């Protein structure tokens, strides 16, 4: 932003005419952008600040001085990790999330390949139905599902979640992978077919290696969706040691007589970290899966 005569250069670079002067751009672009980004990030900052404050500091400093930490402490994190069942909940969440994601990716790869490439009779209709399945929200399914889970003897077990999470993961992943498979040239498959490869070989040796970015996108998104899932986990799990992290934090850490804000925020911060770290490595895949699902 040190370039004071940017207009012509910017034109040739962007291929777009922008006649904005610098002060005007500050008012119309940078200030609104800064405000929006500030609002979007503030809750995370506040989560972090509260986590590392001592109890005294949390309630003695008010006003603007509360926005900074003067005596940082890791007491809240320590308490969370060693005196509550939080690590256990993290482990449960991880187990459910990873299993449900792999199960869904497997089912989705097969289904997407069949719909996109085998083009069996009625494949178009099935594709449309799968898209509609994604629009069925968990909040209208949890009551009948809770009865089914109970009858199947899965109540209060991680398997109740592993089997129900794919109901929203498979439609999404299938839809996404259909788009990826469509972009792989059909000629590659024809050559392999002529050379005598079976469909399974084609899927394993040609289509899958070529759609690794799509698989990563679908996997990351599925991972995030199941990590964030709440209503099924809240309904199907009752004992404290089987809970997933979001449910555990909300139902076990909130003690209504004393609000332990430091502990709660520590739980929120630690629970967000794994997903944030994963996200930071795969931002591009994540964005492409989100936008790809919408664009199709």
């Amino acid at each position, binding site marked *: 932003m040190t370039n004071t005569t940017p207009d012509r250069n910017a034109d040739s670079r962007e*291929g*777009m*005419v922008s006649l904005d002067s610098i002060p005007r751009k500050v008012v119309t672009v940078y200030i*609104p952008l800064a405000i*929006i*980004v500030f609002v*979007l*990030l503030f809750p995370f900052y*506040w989560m972090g600040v*509260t986590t590392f404050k001592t109890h005294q500091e949390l309630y003695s400093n*008010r*006003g603007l001085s509360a*926005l900074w930490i003067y005596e940082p402490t890791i007491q809240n994190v320590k308490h969370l990790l060693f005196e509550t069942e939080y690590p256990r909940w993290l482990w449960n969440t991880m187990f459910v999330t990873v299993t449900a994601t792999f*199960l869904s990716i497997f*089912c989705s790869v*097969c*289904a997407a390949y*069949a719909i996109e490439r*085998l083009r*069996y009779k009625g494949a178009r209709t099935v594709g449309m139905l*799968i898209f509609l*399945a994604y*629009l069925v*929200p*968990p*909040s*209208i*399914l*949890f*009551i009948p*599902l*809770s009865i*089914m889970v109970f009858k199947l003897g899965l109540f209060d077990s991680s398997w109740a979640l592993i*089997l*129900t999470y794919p*109901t929203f993961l*498979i439609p999404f992943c*299938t839809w996404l992978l259909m788009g990826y498979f469509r972009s792989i040239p059909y000629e590659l498959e024809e050559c392999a077919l002529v050379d005598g490869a*079976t*469909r399974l070989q084609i899927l394993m040796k040609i289509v899958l290696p070529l759609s690794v970015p799509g698989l990563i996108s679908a996997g990351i998104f599925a991972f*995030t969706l199941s990590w*964030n899932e*709440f*209503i099924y986990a809240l309904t199907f799990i009752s004992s404290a040691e089987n809970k997933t992290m*979001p*449910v555990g934090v*909300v139902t076990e850490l909130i003690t209504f007589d004393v*609000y332990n*804000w430091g502990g*709660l925020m520590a*739980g929120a911060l630690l*629970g*967000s970290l794994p997903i*944030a770290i994963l*996200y930071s490595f795969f931002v591009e895949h994540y*964005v492409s899966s*989100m*936008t790809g699902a*919408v*664009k199709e």
Partner: protein
Amino acid sequence: MVSITGSNDKSAATERISWLERLNSNRNLLGFLFMLPAALVLLVFLAYPLGLGVWLGFTDVKVGRPGHFIGFDNYEWLFQDDIFWLSVFNTFLYTSVASVIKFAIGLWLALLLNRNLPFKSFLRAIVLLPFIVPTVLSALAFWWIYDSQDSVISWTLIEMGLLDQPIDFLGNPNNARASVIAANIWRGIPFVAITLLAGLQTISPSLYEAATIDGANEWQRFRRITLPLLTPIIAVVMTFSVLFTFTDFQLIWVMTRGGPINATHLMATLSYQRAIIGGALGEGAAIAVAMIPFLLAAVLFSYFGLQRQKWQQGGRDD
């Protein structure tokens, strides 16, 4: 696949190969096998419960007690239930206000991010953070931000001399509604902004160049180029946004549990409260089923909106 072979042994082997080959060349059979895992999961855990839910709405099932078919009794009862109508009103208020503001700010943010900015991809990455962090956890952060005594917003405003006493964010019905809507908007903006940004990036700059040469101003370029070309994506994004806002559960459950005096109860939270906490599974299912017509209406609205757009642009119908 007829082969003439001498020994029995050899012909058996040929037969097996030919069976495999037939399977390999029969697309319908192969397609069926490939679809099996996904279809099984979706039929058992999605289609069946959907039907079961509709059926439960017509019964008086309670937790631990099988129910009987009672026809439309649940619905008749809900029809006279003020709390149910309040939850319907809340759901509509929540969905409409939150969706409109999410769309406005999201589109604005997308337009801002579409400019030539330094650190553009970094900005885009951090803008998405509210969307990827578990809703329950950010709702907890909002709960703390909205604390009746120690809210950071109240403290700051008091310090600046704009306020005498802390705002009771979640204790007063209208404040509570505004607060949960604000939290929902906060969470939804990134999704709208980033998907619309992806749509903006597909619009060819030469269109804007041509319009500028013809003397169009910034507003005309937005109104006549950006908006029409973005409409299909806007339709899809907003359908998703409306659907997920309408059926929202997590934010409300963490922050207010429907209170104060049911002022923030949505249909989903009321259904959970009646079915799981109150044990009236049939009645809860009826409330959940009552959401379906509205969801269908939203989907059909956007579907037909999209069709028209595709036809106008001469796109293929696939």
